[in-house]
Structures are given as structure tokens and as C-alpha cells.
């Protein structure tokens, strides 16, 4: 029987500590839509998405209301579009048509983002992959809800440096194409090393080819809950600190597991995974940087931050794994800058730099995320930053990602605003020294020696 204090602990997590289920994401395979005629392809894609996800938003809201924990986002991920459009698309503009179809389908079923405008080019690019990548600036400028992700490397394949270099240009072109909105297009574009097939979080969600026809993946949240629990044990040793995070992560993940099973049952779609991520938002108290502060750092970014984040990431996994029957996706702590009010503040006072963020990505679940940089940053420098991050992922056998926003017309210290969950922040400085001769070499970086396990 539930006790009084337990009931109120749960109620307070929602009302005071921002506990929510961050996203219920339906993965939809579009492999059966492939057609050599673009009109037929778009029609099939539209039909498959709208029929599969017709009840997604209603069911998500219903479950949220019955259990008293809000489901913030209802989203869709689809098979990487480079694979789906290859037979029909003869130009980047043809791919833009598919992006517009995805956007229209997302609006029709009421989801706020649809992910999978993607290409997986970890080792090489097909002509279709290249066309999709070249279409990204126009596709993201002409759509509202489409998210794009590109796989540039993996531990098994090494890093495709041709694609890394190309993405340096594409990110700048996307920024230019959406410059009226502080280069918002780049907030919907992420590049990966070791991208997971079942990630429910945007902008990097896509429905991998290893997945079933349709699947329900759930992303949990809860930085506010962890911070609140840590407030109660100030000054305690690391054993107590770790146990507290682990216990809290267990409770938060159980909510995700319950919601995933329930959504799966009501929608008649198999349950895939729960992603155990601590995902911050710009809301006060919903911050990873606040947890780091509570652990003892004056600001996120101070010496000790990487160790603190390593503890947080590991304990979230240890608590979460026991709470869910299947875990996957990115699972860990996210460290976006603009989406986390206190991270943005730490960057503003100079405690948090791009280089420190890079170090932090070695021990967190993703990478350099939602960082506004000067619009004048050269494409080669952006490619260099991507290459560094891909190398960290490749060598450490983990997922890493880069979502940089070069804000056209703005410079260090200016303010960039993206609105809603995407947040706002001052523009961070980038290392001024060049790396053009390195990233322009072309070709690919071989897989590291420890990838040969056969």
C-alpha cells in the first residue's frame, strides 16, 4: 500500500520539481514507401505517417492526465530519408519535396517535431546521401518541424572526413538560409558519431533500419528532481551522493517505463526502449548546470565539472537500467547550452568555454549541443570542431554529436534567441586559429585499433 509521504513525494516532483515525460516518440519505418516516382513516394509517406500516428498526440495527453505527469512532446522519427528518397530524387530540390511532405504530415497529426531527414555516411556517401545533405539548408528553411541528422563516423568505420568537411559548409549555409530567425535552422540539425537507431530525442531522432515497422520509444527527464534530492544531502560524501542520484533516477525512469508500456498498449505499437536521459529545459530549476552547482561547483565549467558530470551520467544509468526492461537511445545527461538556463549563465560569466564543454562530452551522453557561435566562424573551423567531437566518440566507443548554431550577423556577447524549449544564450567565442589544411585533406580517418574485436 502506498504511504502518505510516498504519495506526496510523487506529487511534489511534478508540481515543484518539473518532473515530466519529455517525449513519446513513435518510430515509423518508411522502407515500404520507396518508389521511383516522387509524387507516389510523397503520397505513400504521407499516408503511412498519418495513419500510423493518428492517435499519438491524443493517447500521450490521455496517459499524462490519468497518471498526473505531463507528456511534454509527442514526436515521430522515420527511416533515414536518404535511403527512402534515393530511387525517386534526381536533385536536392526533389529531397526538399520529401521534407515538405514530412512537415505537412507532422502538422496533420499534431506532433511538434519529426526526425529522420537523415543520411548515414559514416564510411562513404552515395549520390542520394550527398543530395540529401546538399538539400538540408533549403529543407530546414522551408519547413518548420523537420529535424535533420547526419552520421559522420563510428568506432567500427572510422570518420568520413569528406562528409565532415561538407557539413562545415552545410551548417553555415543552413544558418544563412534561416538568418532572419537567429539561424534557427541549425537548431534542427545535428551530426553524430555512433548514432543510435532508437533515439527518441530531437534533433537526432531517426528510425534505424534495424528497427521494426513501428515502435514506441520514450525519453524521460527530471534534472529538477535530482537537484532537489541533492539539496537534502549537502556536504555528504560521494557514496551518499551517488546513491541519491541512483535512487532518484530509478524513480524517474519508472515513470517512463510505465508510460511507454501504456502508450504501446493503447496505440497497438510495440514498445522499443526507454531513454534514460536527464534532459534540461530553459525553465527555472530544470537544469543540469544546477545539479553540477549543487554537487559543489561555483558554476558549471569550474574545475571538477567533468568529474561531477561523469558521476551524474553513470549513476543515472545505474538507477535507470534497473527501472526499465529495455533501455537505449542516448541515455545519460544532456549538456545543451541554450536549452539550459544555468548553462547559458555559466557561459556568460566565463566559467564555461567551448573547450571545457568538449571535455565534458567525453563523459556525458551526447556532445556539443545547442551552442551559439559567431556567424563569421569559417566553415573549416566548424568542420574542425566536428572532427574533434567525432574522434572523441570514435575512440571512446560512445555517441557524440555536434549541434552548433553560427548566428549570422551576430558576434561574441550578442544574444541569440530560439524560443520555446530551444532557449536562448549569448554567443560563445571560438578558437581563432585555423585548421583548414587539416580538414581539407579529404578522405577518411581509419577505425581505431580497438574496434577490431572479431
Amino acid at each position: 500500500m502506498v504511504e502518505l509521504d510516498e504519495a506526496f513525494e510523487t506529487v511534489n516532483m511534478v508540481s515543484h520539481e518539473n518532473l515530466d515525460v519529455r517525449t513519446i516518440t513513435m518510430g515509423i519505418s518508411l522502407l515500404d514507401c520507396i518508389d521511383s516516382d516522387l509524387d507516389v513516394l510523397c503520397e505513400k509517406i504521407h499516408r503511412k505517417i498519418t495513419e500510423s500516428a493518428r492517435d499519438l498526440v491524443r493517447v500521450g495527453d490521455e496517459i499524462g492526465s490519468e497518471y498526473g505527469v505531463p507528456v511534454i512532446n509527442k514526436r515521430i522519427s522515420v527511416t533515414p530519408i536518404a535511403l527512402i528518397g534515393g530511387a525517386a530524387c534526381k536533385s536536392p530540390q526533389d529531397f526538399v519535396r520529401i521534407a515538405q511532405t514530412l512537415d505537412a504530415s507532422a502538422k496533420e497529426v499534431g506532433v511538434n517535431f519529426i526526425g529522420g531527414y537523415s543520411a548515414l555516411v559514416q564510411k562513404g556517401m552515395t549520390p542520394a546521401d550527398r543530395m540529401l545533405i546538399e538539400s538540408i539548408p533549403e529543407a530546414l528553411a522551408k519547413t518548420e518541424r523537420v529535424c535533420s541528422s547526419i552520421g559522420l563516423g563510428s568506432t567500427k568505420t572510422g570518420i568520413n572526413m569528406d562528409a565532415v568537411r561538407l557539413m562545415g559548409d552545410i551548417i553555415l549555409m543552413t544558418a544563412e538560409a534561416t538568418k532572419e530567425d537567429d539561424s534557427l535552422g541549425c537548431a534542427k540539425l545535428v551530426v553524430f558519431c555512433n548514432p543510435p537507431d532508437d533515439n527518441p530525442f530531437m534533433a537526432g531522432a531517426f528510425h534505424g533500419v534495424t528497427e521494426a515497422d513501428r515502435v514506441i520509444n520514450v525519453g524521460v527527464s527530471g534534472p529538477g528532481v535530482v537537484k532537489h534530492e541533492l539539496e537534502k544531502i549537502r556536504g555528504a560524501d560521494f557514496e551518499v551522493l551517488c546513491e541519491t542520484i541512483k535512487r532518484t533516477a530509478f524513480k524517474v525512469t519508472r515513470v517512463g517505463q510505465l508510460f511507454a508500456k501504456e502508450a504501446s498498449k493503447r496505440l497497438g505499437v510495440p514498445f522499443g526502449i526507454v531513454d534514460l536521459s536527464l534532459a534540461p529545459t530553459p525553465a527555472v530549476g530544470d537544469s543540469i548546470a544546477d545539479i553540477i552547482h549543487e554537487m559543489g561547483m561555483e558554476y558549471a565549467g569550474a574545475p571538477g565539472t567533468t568529474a561531477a558530470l561523469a558521476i551524474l551520467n553513470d549513476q543515472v544509468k545505474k538507477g535507470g537500467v534497473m527501472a526499465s526492461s529495455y533501455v537505449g537511445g542516448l541515455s545519460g545527461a544532456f549538456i545543451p547550452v541554450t536549452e539550459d538556463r544555468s548553462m547559458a549563465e555559466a557561459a556568460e560569466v566565463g566559467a564555461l568555454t567551448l573547450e571545457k564543454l568538449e571535455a565534458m562530452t567525453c563523459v556525458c551522453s551526447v556532445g556539443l549541443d545547442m551552442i551559439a557561435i559567431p556567424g563569421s566562424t569559417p566553415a573549416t573551423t566548424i568542420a574542425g570542431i566536428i572532427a574533434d567531437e567525432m574522434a572523441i566518440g570514435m575512440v571512446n566507443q560512445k555517441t557524440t554529436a555536434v549541434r552548433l548554431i553560427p548566428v549570422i550577423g551576430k558576434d561574441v556577447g550578442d544574444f541569440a534567441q530560439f524560443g520555446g524549449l530551444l532557449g536562448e544564450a549569448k554567443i560563445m567565442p571560438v578558437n581563432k586559429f585555423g585548421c583548414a589544411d587539416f580538414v581539407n585533406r579529404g578522405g577518411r580517418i581509419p577505425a581505431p585499433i580497438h574496434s577490431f574485436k572479431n
Partner: protein
Amino acid sequence: MSKTIVTLVGKDRVGIIATVCNFFAENNINILDLKQTTSRGYINMMMIVDTDEYKGSMQDLNLGLEEVGSKVGCIIKAQHEEIFEMMHRI
């Protein structure tokens, strides 16, 4: 049986539980368990109720409880029991 947990928090005064219980009686909701504490003039209460005979949805129930809450100056919420069991029991 579908069990629902109702939590109430607010400034204590005469008749809070009576008003809530009346609402349940009028709506065919059976009270299975009731626990409460008061401290410094505030009340925390939890009820476990059986909603099998209740005609509306969980959303209707919460709307009704919101109205009752505004009469007695408390915040009242209803949630499926399963979420508490999931979070607090292995």
C-alpha cells in the same frame, strides 16, 4: 478494481474531509483508505479510492476535484495508483 490515489494539500479548516467525502459519495466512488497529517495549520491527506462505479473519465474526476478544492481552499489531485507503485516499489 481500478484504484485511484487522491492527494490533498492546503490550509486546514473544519469540513475539508467532509466536503471531499460528500463529493465521492455523490459520484459513486468508494473510499478504501484514508491517511492524513496536519502540521502548523496545514493539512496533507491521501485517499485510496475505487473508481469502478464512477461514470466519468480521470479528466472529469480531476475537474470535479478542482471545483471541490476551490470550495475548501485546497489543491486536490487524482492519479492512477499504478504510478505510485511503479515509483516506490521494486
